[in-house]
């Protein structure tokens, strides 16, 4: 689960990380009020959307007075912000973070992620801040310094010191950076984070070490024990169909293509998307109806896929194992009869009792194309999506 910058900063502050003074708002009047309260000589207005690269799309702007803050905020709230990470449609700006501007002498990168092969959180720092870390990793991977949390020990201060000296900070800055890194690791572990990124981490003219930006996402599987974090979820920032699917317990991701697919199992679902592409089409989604593909789940899946106007044909690919193909077929037929299916549907079944399953599909009276193999199914559905036979 992703959260907004202002939410991440509130959490980090609680752990002792220094962040700029500021508050979120959703109207230009509020923005001006915040600016007056802050009483600074210049301000930063930052669009609160779940996407990076905001600066490039006009999502981060400066202002010199509360009056100017009000004017700029008026321009930003309600705009569609397009950044390299939002896609061409961009994201509507509903909220801003108004902060006191900082006088910066140095920018760095600081991030924590899970190192899958080490099985522990790893802290990464880089002397270049404010740029995309993926870009640095490609261009000059040697610039990124890393240290892993030690199982059973945690993250000892010496590792933080090693990183801080490693990026060339002076002794006073090192001291503050060490405190900040240790606070960040604590925040990461205590909140079951999946990623915390401070980009940039800055040294100010006064010599403070400040988290100028903050990005955090959390392990969905651990949210059950963090009710306070669960409340930070902003459904406005998520794809509406994905939200609805997650309510029905389905794993669904919207893609750009026009061939819808409904598959049991995540691996097979990915493989099916790949096959659609191999057959010359483009998948409209990822959808895992669950290993068993019960009638209820199939019905929920239809409810997600059918209203999507970009779906021009639908492929149902089910491997019936312990849940036999005839049972799966009955479920699919029952669900389809209840729904108004307006697009051509290709069904490919394999597994236990497959002949009986195919017979049920053929005799259903529904306009289903029953495919014999996975590739055959993909070719048929791609052809149908283009109005072909």
């Amino acid at each position: 689960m992703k959260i907004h910058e202002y939410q991440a900063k509130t959490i980090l502050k609680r752990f002792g990380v220094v962040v700029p003074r500021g508050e979120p708002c959703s109207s230009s009047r509020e923005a001006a009020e915040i600016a007056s309260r802050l009483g600074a000589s210049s301000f930063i207005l930052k669009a609160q959307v779940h996407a990076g690269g905001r600066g490039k799309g006009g999502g981060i702007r400066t202002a010199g007075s509360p009056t100017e803050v009000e004017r700029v905020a008026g321009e930003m709230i309600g705009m569609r912000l397009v950044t390299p990470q939002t896609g061409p449609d961009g994201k509507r700006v509903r909220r801003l973070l108004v902060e006191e501007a900082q006088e910066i002498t140095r920018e760095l990168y600081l991030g924590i992620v899970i190192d899958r092969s080490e099985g522990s959180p790893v802290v990464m720092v880089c002397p270049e801040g404010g740029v995309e870390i993926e870009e640095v990793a490609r261009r000059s991977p040697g610039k990124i310094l890393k240290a892993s949390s030690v199982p059973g020990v945690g993250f000892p201060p010496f590792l933080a010191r090693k990183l801080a000296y490693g990026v060339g900070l002076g002794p006073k800055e090192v001291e503050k950076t060490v405190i900040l890194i240790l606070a960040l690791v604590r925040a990461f572990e205590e909140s079951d984070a999946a990623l915390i990124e401070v980009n940039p981490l800055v040294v100010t003219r006064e010599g403070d070490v400040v988290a100028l930006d903050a990005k955090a996402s959390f392990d969905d599987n651990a949210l059950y024990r963090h009710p306070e974090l669960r409340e930070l979820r902003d459904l406005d920032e998520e794809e509406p169909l994905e939200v609805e699917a997650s309510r029905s317990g389905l794993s669904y991701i919207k893609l750009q293509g026009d061939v819808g697919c409904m598959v049991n199992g995540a691996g097979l679902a990915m493989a099916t998307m790949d096959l659609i592409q191999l057959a010359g089409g483009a998948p409209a989604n990822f959808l895992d109806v669950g290993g068993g593909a019960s009638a209820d789940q199939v019905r929920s899946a239809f409810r997600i896929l059918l209203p999507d106007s970009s779906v021009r044909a639908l492929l149902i690919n089910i491997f019936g194992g312990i849940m036999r193909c005839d049972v799966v077929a009955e479920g699919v037929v029952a669900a389809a009869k209840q729904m108004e299916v307006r697009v051509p549907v290709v069904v490919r079944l394999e597994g236990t009792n497959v002949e009986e399953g195919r017979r049920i599909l053929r005799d259903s009276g529904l306009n289903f194309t029953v495919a014999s193999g996975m590739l055959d199914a993909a070719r048929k559905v791609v052809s149908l999506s283009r109005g072909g036979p």
Partner: protein
Amino acid sequence: MSILADRNTRLLVQGITGREGAFHTRQAVAYGTQVVAGVTPGKGGTTHEGIPVFNTAAEAVANTGANASVIFVPPPFAADAVMEAADASVPLVICITEGIPTLDMMRVMTFLQGKPTRLIGPNCPGIITPGQCKIGIMPGAIHRSGAVGVISRSGTLTYEAVAQLTACGIGQSTCIGIGGDPILGTRFVDVLRLFREDPETRGIVLIGEIGGTAEEEAARYIQESITVPVVAFIAGRTAPPGKRMGHAGAIISGGSGTAAEKVEALHRAGIRIVENPASIGEAMAEALTARSH
């Protein structure tokens, strides 16, 4: 003829009285697996469909000589169950549970260090040695005893591959689903090493997917140490970056973990890669024929 599990495996089921645990225990027994004990705290001293139930794994092992355990415990308690099995010196633990927090799994991995327990999973279909022993949630009937080992991060996609092998007349030595989570007890390389030591495994099917670098590690190991033919498939060529594709571990993050990188690494290691997941069986049949000539 197999690795890790065979007809001498004596299975303990943790969470045997739960819905999933009970259902798959019945399936395992029907397949011929020796299920010797169950654990459900608070239900010790009772029996479940004729299988003795204990309060703790230690008691279950002491009383029944269980040498493997399968876990069907809900996510908040599953990490604890893995550690309990390891503490009871169970040499093989298979965790089916999906949805265990990553930090819990990190603690489990630390706990397992220096202990002789091998953990398979979590979030996996389990392990089967056809004709001998089924531990997990896979459909037993699609398997057939033979000489090809199967390793996969997936569930149903593995069944697809197995069904194709069987349809081509190729049996399996052992099939292992290592799991779809980012942190796993057993990785591709560990299983490859076991297959390498099994003289009866004459071919290996490897099914990977986006996320992490386990396939790249596997490619290096196969190139250096595996002499039998390997057929690989990588799922997720069309997956967008930054999105979790169902499995907690199936995510392209920071530009790495893409299918293209994995395919490239496997290709460079000289491994046969199929683009069409429906041709895994045929590809293995060809590889085995080429080898025997």
